[in-house]
């Protein structure tokens, strides 16, 4: 049995999670504190992947990332390879697709920290960055854990968007969900069973972890 889809899936999920934690933090921070009028619009855009069929997102991404489009063309010039039907393209797609799964837990963690706590930090002489690193981060650890786990798991479960922009190239862009699809198509039920059961157990464990973390009473600001 070819295990490369498992390996590619894990790599994709890890890269996506790492990038999203970095990118999602400032977005979630802005959403948590901004009073700007465009905030609801930004919030809606961030939540779009939750309601859009992955094929819609995949279709637009395919348009944007293809070597004929400006973004895809620029990438081709810079890196020498196309974004479409490549691992890098998969990462771009996954990052967009899983954005709300990172931003929403972080945003609610930041809101929970509260303006009062930030004010307290300022009166103790802590600069904004200092406040973030030494007050907000320790108070939001659970939010970060939930965000990371959800993002990772959601990326593992991707199908439509991957198929649209990554195709099905074994050893390169063939992830688990697509490998299962292919095994079923070619009536290789035994392999499909192994991969599916593995994914099922993985998903259950992840969700169990998230709900256990969410259920436990965490740090509260007095």
């Amino acid at each position, binding site marked *: 049995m070819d295990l490369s889809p498992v390996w590619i899936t894990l790599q994709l999920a890890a890269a996506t999670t790492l990038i999203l934690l970095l990118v999602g933090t400032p977005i979630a921070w802005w959403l948590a504190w901004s009073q700007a009028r465009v905030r609801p619009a930004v919030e809606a855009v961030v939540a779009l992947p939750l309601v859009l069929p992955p094929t819609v997102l995949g279709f637009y991404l395919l348009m944007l990332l293809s070597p004929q489009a400006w973004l895809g063309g620029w990438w081709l010039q810079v890196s020498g390879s196309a974004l479409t039907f490549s691992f890098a393209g998969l990462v771009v797609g996954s990052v967009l697709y899983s954005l709300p799964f990172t931003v929403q837990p972080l945003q609610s963690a930041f809101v929970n920290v509260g303006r009062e*706590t930030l*004010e*307290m930090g300022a*009166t*103790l*002489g802590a600069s904004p960055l200092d406040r973030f690193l030494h007050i907000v981060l320790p108070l939001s650890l659970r939010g970060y854990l939930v965000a990371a786990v959800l993002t990772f798991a959601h990326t593992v479960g991707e199908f439509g968007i991957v198929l649209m922009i990554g195709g099905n190239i074994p050893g390169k862009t063939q992830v688990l969900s697509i490998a299962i699809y292919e095994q079923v198509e070619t009536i290789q039920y035994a392999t499909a069973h192994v991969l599916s059961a593995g994914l099922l157990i993985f998903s259950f464990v992840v969700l169990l972890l998230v709900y256990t973390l969410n259920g436990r009473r965490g740090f*509260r600001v*007095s």
Partner: protein
Amino acid sequence: MMTTLAVQMARSLSGFTLSLDVKFSLSGITGILGPSGAGKTTLLRAIAGLDAGQTGRIQFADALWFDSEQQVNLPTHKRAVGYVFQDARLLPFTDVAGNLRFAEKRSRHRARLIDWDDVVDTLDLGALLKRMPQSLSGGERQRVALARALLTRPQLLLLDEPLSANDIQRKKALLPYIRKLSTHFSVPMIYVSHALDEMVALTDRLLVLREGESIAHDTTEAVLQRLDLREVSASRDAGAIFAATVVAHDTALQLSTLSLGAQHIFVPGLSLVMNAAVRLQIHSHDVAIALAAPSGLSIRNVLPCRVVAIDADHGSPFAELLLDIGDGLLRSRITRASVLELKLAVGDAVYALIKTVLVDNTSAS
């Protein structure tokens, strides 16, 4: 050490505009008194730089902290203020020592002699250092918050109703700590509260706010003598404060004699140190009036005095009197009916009968 804090500010609040032009002469404790919604906290937050959206100018000594015209707005963490909030706001993920270390690491004036051990001792935190904030009582939390604010080594400490979350017993236990901090560490404080008793116990100067405007700003003693301020007159804690000296002890009867200029006052107990300077507080509802020196009376403290002012507001059953005892002014609250029956008038020589004298011996100054 006297520092000036000049605050000029305007800000619209719900229902009225906070509009102030005040120069604080900061030494000891300055109180800001007023009912809730008068703008006290808004003023304090403006001094700390916690809110945006006001116009005006705030200058602390030589440093310009805020000027809406010149677009100057020094961020809170660069202003040399410590702030104690109503709710202590301790960091929940670290113990008491961790909370104090957080402040000390960021302290802005390392040269100033506010020493860790000294702060911990003064606020009796030694036994609490390893405890988590969640396990502390309200009073203990507030003591940690005070220590933490002090360890940032501020040039000005702002306290926003730090006792309001506490019951009366805890309040009484915390007051001496706050008084001690201001003298021991000589950090000027601005203390916001709606409770006159806290002001009487703590402050040296008092600013009274009503609907966003300053209606009195003077020494606490002088503000307490004002009969025209309902913030003072309507309070159960209205009264007078005096500086007195312990001059004698009667060990047989266990009474101490205090001198108030030429007058003497007797207080039970011998705990006061001979010749010590103490602060006395006499509530107006503890002072009755007699036209002649009374006999056959259990009250020990009877002072000859002269009526200086009478405020017999028709909206209340009571009248407020100001009495000159030779070396200070005493307040008395008696019924308007008594004023009429005794035919009291300004200038009359009368006797003040004092039921209770409160002695604050932590305030030796």
